[in-house]
């Protein structure tokens, strides 16, 4: 027999304080909009004690919720002043609001899980595993920043001065541009560097696109590689 303490993982029972709270509300068959706070707080603390005895590693979240409960309970005990200012807000709302939001989303998750999930309930024909053009065997190198800047300069030069009109109305944010590029990469997991600039005829448009590519590389959303032979730069969606 081993004498070492063993820690029990709390997850399968209550993943978080919200789940414990829901469990208690359910067990006591009370309305979530009319929680008997004293009762629930007491039981909540009992569970925490019990979990501590079982050597369950309690996350800070459980303690935080205990504090919230205790605070609401004490506010409930204070005499209510029925001023002209109108009735004071039920202190329990602080708990009920996030709780009902959580329940709504939990319910939504269950509804989603009951759909005919692709790969579980329903299937599509598998795309053929044909060797795509420029398969992995092609020697490529991770590109350096300078090569990238060279490629960028070429694109800027290509548009020529005639097209370098600044149309501020068309300016889009970096974030929007990233979203657009990701949409395209989702359809084509690999694109040539030049292709990412398709439709960009203004200098700001090209600059935003370039910055978007850099940002995406930094966020590790894409890989940027250069073909050793042709020098063509390609972007791969990860």
């Amino acid at each position, binding site marked *: 027999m081993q004498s070492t303490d063993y820690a029990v993982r709390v*997850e399968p029972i209550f*993943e*978080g*304080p*919200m*789940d414990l709270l*829901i469990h208690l*509300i*359910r067990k006591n*068959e009370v*309305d*979530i*909009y009319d929680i008997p706070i004293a009762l629930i707080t007491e039981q909540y603390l009992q569970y925490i004690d019990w979990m501590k005895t079982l050597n369950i590693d309690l*996350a800070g*979240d459980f303690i935080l*919720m205990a504090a919230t409960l205790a605070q609401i309970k004490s506010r409930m005990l204070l005499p209510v002043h029925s001023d002209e200012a109108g009735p004071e807000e039920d202190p329990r709302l602080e708990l009920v609001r*996030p709780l*009902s*939001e*959580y*329940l*709504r*989303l*939990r*319910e*939504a*998750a*269950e*509804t*989603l*899980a*009951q*759909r*005919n*999930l*692709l*790969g*579980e*309930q*329903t*299937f*599509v*024909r598998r*795309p*053929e595993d044909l060797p795509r053009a420029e398969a992995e065997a092609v020697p490529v190198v991770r590109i350096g920043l300078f090569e990238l800047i060279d490629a960028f300069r070429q694109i800027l030069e290509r548009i020529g001065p005639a097209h370098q009109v600044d149309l501020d109305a068309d300016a889009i944010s*970096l*974030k929007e541009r*990233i*979203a657009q590029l*990701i949409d395209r990469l*989702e359809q084509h997991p690999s694109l040539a560097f030049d292709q990412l600039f398709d439709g960009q005829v203004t200098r700001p448009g090209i600059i935003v696109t370039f910055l978007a590519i850099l*940002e995406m590389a930094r*966020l590790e*959303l894409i890989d940027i590689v250069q073909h050793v032979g042709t020098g063509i730069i390609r972007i791969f969606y990860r």
Partner: protein
Amino acid sequence: MTPELPAIIESLLFAADEPLRLETLRGVLDGVDTAAIRQALDDLAAEYEKRGGGFYLLEVAGGYQLRTRPCFHPWIRRLRGSGGERLSRAALETLAIVAYRQPIVRAEIENLRGVDCGGVLRLLLERRLIRVMGRKEIPGRPLIYGTTRQFLEVFELRDLKDLPTLKEIRELAPEEAAVESPQETPKAPPGSKNP
């Protein structure tokens, strides 16, 4: 309108490896107007319904796709061997939060769930159900998450507006959230275990 248009479209649906968008169809069927394409798609869908065969036509993720009928999943799973790992409850919850509240940052998700979500988010990213949409311009510049096209495909949604409406919850079922979906119970092939 050419009489064989539905057949042409059927061949395209069969050969496509992702939901076929109306624009793609229009591009391929150069010169055929959208109304005729839609009509042909409707006709095909009705034909498959009438026939009641192994597959049906589903409008999903902004396109159209042929899919096997849910009642045949036991056989297909056998054909393909063990399927993908099912999503845990934690993963599903997190995914639902991202789907309904996107764009959203990790702290907001954790606020809602009351627990750390780092591992679950990583898993969802790996399975391409969610994606990073950028960084929020607040201190710490946290990553912003949203769902992917793959999410729509897996959960048979046409688009994000197609997500089921959130229900207001007043009462909790006594024990264990009641699962009340009259799902067609498939006859499993002999000897197969239902998961």
